């Protein structure tokens, strides 16, 4: 039966298009770190505030250093979170640490907040023998079971309906956990987005859809991605709660997510959050944005830097100082560089990782294919330096996790 029995009746054919209403933007902090008049800031104690800020700063530094490393040819590829740290870290901080995060690729701040170690980042970036992903995916495709962070997958938007399913499982398990899935405004054009939000609403699952509307999908500006006023109004099509938030405002993101989580978990219902932000860096190390956007536009957004905004707020609270900033930056830099050096020196994953994890138990066919490969590599050792190393690594044993 149709769900629209109680609709009002009209006798003139008038069309609506959504201009009748607008989704406002929720903001708490001004760029100078002071609160808007009437804004009631969330309860955030000093420890938590500093945990958030340190994660944001670490992410910023990691991104700077690793982009530089990529430029030096030490790394094949890199993607920065720069400009979006508040959306990522602020939302993560509002979750329970056991909540599942299913992100897109630009969300390393979430891992940083949850305590992913600098060596864990580096091992993935270099795809060495300690990479949890066993050197199979490109850099930035992190995953952590213990931190409840689903391994990143390159195909866009696939994680969005998966998040709906994951959250359904959490609801069945009844332990009060939820799932947050993070994605770009570009990915939100995929069919999987529609599937995910509709199913979440129909099946009533505790999932938070967090869209980072950062203005671009590679070179494609948001206004060539959709015609509507952002992503938020799509929620009306699913009768889903929605809030739009200034994504560069750490406190607004934190508070919106906290409320969303509370509501999602208590009611087993999905929520959509649209975080308005900007990708300050290039899309990836392979990209050059000068071909599709202006320096001036970038400058405008640099003035809204979320890290600086939070620092100014912390300083206004007396929780942070110039001195501490310098020292923390220094520490981060040093840690990143040291870890980088450790990671790039490590051997490649064991050759057997070429065929493991395809199935839980490796098939005879695969074992045969590996054996052939091994004897081939032994025949042409100079042609496969990594192959030889990974053969030997296996022989030497012990060292590999």
């Amino acid at each position, binding site marked *: 039966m149709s769900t629209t029995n109680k609709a009002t009746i009209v006798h003139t054919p008038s069309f609506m298009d959504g201009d009748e209403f607008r989704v406002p933007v929720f903001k708490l902090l001004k760029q100078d770190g002071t609160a808007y008049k009437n804004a009631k800031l969330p309860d955030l104690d000093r420890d938590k505030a500093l945990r958030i800020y340190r994660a944001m700063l670490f992410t910023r530094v990691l991104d700077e250093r690793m982009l530089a490393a990529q430029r030096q040819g030490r790394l094949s590829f890199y993607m920065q979170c720069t400009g979006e740290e508040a959306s990522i870290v602020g939302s993560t901080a509002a979750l329970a640490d056991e909540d*599942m995060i*299913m992100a897109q690729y630009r969300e390393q701040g979430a891992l940083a907040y949850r305590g992913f170690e600098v060596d864990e980042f580096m091992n993935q970036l270099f795809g060495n023998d300690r*990479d*949890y*992903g*066993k050197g*199979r*995916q490109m850099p930035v*495709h992190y*995953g*952590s*079971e213990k931190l409840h962070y*689903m*391994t990143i*997958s390159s*195909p866009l938007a*696939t*994680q*969005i*309906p*998966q*998040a*709906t*399913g*994951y*959250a*359904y*499982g*959490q609801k*069945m*398990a009844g332990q009060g956990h939820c*799932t947050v899935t993070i994605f770009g405004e570009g990915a939100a054009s995929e*069919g*999987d987005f*529609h*599937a*995910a939000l*509709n*199913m979440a609403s*129909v*099946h009533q699952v505790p999932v938070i859809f967090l869209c980072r509307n950062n203005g671009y999908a590679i070179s494609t500006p948001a206004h060539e991605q959709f015609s509507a006023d952002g992503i938020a109004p799509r929620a009306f099509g699913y009768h889903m709660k929605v809030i739009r938030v200034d994504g560069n405002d750490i406190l607004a993101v934190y508070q919106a997510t906290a409320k969303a989580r509370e509501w999602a978990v208590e009611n087993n219902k999905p929520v959509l959050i649209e975080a308005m932000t900007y990708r300050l860096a290039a899309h990836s190390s392979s990209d050059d944005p000068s071909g599709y956007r202006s320096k001036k536009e970038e400058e405008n957004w640099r003035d809204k830097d979320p890290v600086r905004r939070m620092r100014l707020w912390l300083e206004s609270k007396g929780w942070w100082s110039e001195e501490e900033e310098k020292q923390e930056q220094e520490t981060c830099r040093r840690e990143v560089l040291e870890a980088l050096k450790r990671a790039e020196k490590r051997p490649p994953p064991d050759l057997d*990782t070429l065929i*493991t*994890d*395809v*199935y*839980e*138990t490796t*098939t*005879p*066919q695969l074992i045969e294919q590996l054996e052939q490969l091994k004897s081939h590599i032994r025949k042409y050792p100079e042609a496969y330096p990594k192959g030889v190393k990974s053969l030997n690594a296996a022989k030497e044993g012990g060292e590999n996790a």
Partner: protein
Amino acid sequence: MPEMNMLKAINNALDTAMAADDKVICFGEDVGVFGGVFRATSNLQEKYGRARCFNTPLVEQGIIGFANGLAAQGSKPVAEIQFADYIFPAFDQIINESAKFRYRSGNLFNVGGLTIRTPYGGGISGGLYHSQSPEAYFAHTPGLKVVVPRNPHQAKGLLLASIRDPDPVLFFEPKRLYRASVGEVPEEDYQLPLGKAEILKEGDGITLLAWGAQMEMVDKAAELAEKEGISCEIIDLRTIVPWDVETVVESVFKTGRLLVTHEAPLTGGFAGEIAATIQQRCFLYLESPIARVTGLDTPFPLTLEKEYMPDHLKIFEAIKQSIDY
């Protein structure tokens, strides 16, 4: 032992799996109150509640995306795709996600609990879009298992094994046999092994290899051939990936001849893979070329469906050609 048709056997397998493990959850288009358009999920919602057996919105990519997430969480989703012809909107979720989930995460995460059930095949006046046999599309995808039962007994045992298998499984149900195939099926819980072919009849003149609904055609063709004095060895592959190379190789060592048949079009069908592997493994033993009896390289027709199908007569002719080579 009770007699059941294949639908009943599948329904019974789902019931058995859901009773044994409350992590098993069945869903798909119309599988709830209605029990699915073929009624394979009849009474499951009544018995196990709406939370464990339910209708989804009409979106295959969503059904499998949802199932992938649910499996990653640790549940055991059994997702139904209403017709195999409608599995393609979910192709990305299956090929790029289900198949690669464990590998790409270095085994941090997996969707091993996932089973996708879907009716396939022709012979029911379904035309282009209710007749396809898409197994070969999935067979080219490492990380997936692909299973096809031939009768009710097999259907129950293989489906239970698929649901409990630690890897994602595509379970193709020969819908032509849903009601047509009837046989004894144990009431109790049992599993048949994945990855193992079954030799249904021994013989030494030619090996006949197939799966699912084609087994019936093969049986009939073998009867005709035996009447002409040709001894046939009949093998049901049962699992398309990973397939049981050794059983087929052993058989061809003995018979020196192989015929493979499937309903899907010839070009790129799974018979090609089998032929390529067997000519390599059994080169010196082959007395005639490996024969393929398949659908034409066209979409599936309607009015001339009978003409299109690789039936027992076409197989019989190919057997004779192979023998007379």
